[in-house]
């Protein structure tokens, strides 16, 4: 066991783990986060996605020792001061979830995408999200939610760059 200091949603958090322990286990098991989920544990579904250094990453295959001192953002931390992120609002408005187990995957990947590219085409969105799995088949609603979120974020871009509602 070793001590690690992680930066999670803007806060320094101390955790104790084997260096190769997946970040996901630490986020859920030790820090009690509910956003990232265990889906496959094999980097094949995206349910465990967090944003590390601005890029979507699958925390089920990411050793905790590899992300020390790198800013980690999670679905749990997207709500700021009681305000959901515009991507979250768009998912709610489009009802882009059924069981919601995969929702973390889509929301976090979309946040990372829109921070890079505020006006993605449908094709770019499809390409970006192609590796994510939703067994409930919410894909078309999700696509609508991404387009809605992108439009909303562009509209408010003058006021804020954080995507906060």
């Amino acid at each position, binding site marked *: 066991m070793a001590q690690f200091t992680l930066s999670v949603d803007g806060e320094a958090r101390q955790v104790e783990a084997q260096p190769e322990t997946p970040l996901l286990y630490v986020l859920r098991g030790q820090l009690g986060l*509910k956003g990232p989920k265990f889906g496959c544990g094999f980097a094949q579904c995206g349910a465990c996605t967090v944003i590390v250094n601005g890029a979507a990453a699958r925390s*089920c*295959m990411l050793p905790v020792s590899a992300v020390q001192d790198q800013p980690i953002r999670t679905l749990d931390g997207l709500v700021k001061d009681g305000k959901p992120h515009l991507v979250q609002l768009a998912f709610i408005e489009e*009802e882009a*979830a059924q069981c*919601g187990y995969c929702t*973390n995957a889509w929301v976090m990947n979309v946040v990372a995408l829109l921070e890079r590219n505020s006006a993605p085409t449908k094709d770019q969105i499809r390409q970006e999200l192609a590796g994510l799995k939703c067994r409930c088949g919410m894909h078309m609603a999700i696509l609508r939610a991404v387009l809605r979120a992108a439009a909303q974020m562009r509209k408010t871009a003058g006021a804020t760059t954080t995507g906060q509602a």
Partner: protein
Amino acid sequence: MSAAPDTLDRRQFLQGSGLLLVAAGGATLLRLPEAQAQQAGTIAAAVRDIAPEQLDTWITIDTAGRVTAFFGKMDMGQGVDTAVAQIVADELDVAVDRVSVVMGDTHLTPNQGGASGSSACRQRVSAGAAAGRTITYGELIADGFRTPLQWNRQFGNGLAVRGAAPVKQVADYQVVGKPVARKDIAGKVLATTEYCVHVSLPGMLHARVVRPPVAGSVPAVVDELHRRHRRSAGGAGWRLPGGGGAR
């Protein structure tokens, strides 16, 4: 808290003062005497007695007119809670946003089994199919509240009270069959919904399925470190068909 079923129409029912109770097993309507109703006014806060033969096990209406339906099934995101709220709103002639649905918690509702096979909102499909006609969505989900009777028996629940109040005709539905915003989405998107995987008990271990990278592989080695789930890549090294190895 049970009383003899009493027949009254919906308007009378809703105009009556105090707490009113309805059975979810049919169109049974029941009105409690005022004194009893006041006593029951704290029902939401109290520990619930969920004897299936008691009508307040299924529906309560508080003095402010808020309706709570207790539904003993758990869905997987199909939106059964919203559909049940629509059915209740229509049967009671109240706005759908006054109805909340509690389900999937056996501290609060009887166990009515899973929601598979559309069993939470079904019944006329087979009847309609037999008659060779199309079933509307409204008809389909309106039966959700009658179905529990059979399910209750199947699960050993005793509710078998049948009321005399007429069941609303499909043509009279105002809420059923119309789009209503899903009640369950926000919690899922904001990471506040509880999933089974959030349950954590002292000393609890997690098991996981480990799959080989290609079909036909056989486990070559299972070491202690892997067995204890410290690694993400799986609990075993694999011997691949054709002689290669993978970990």
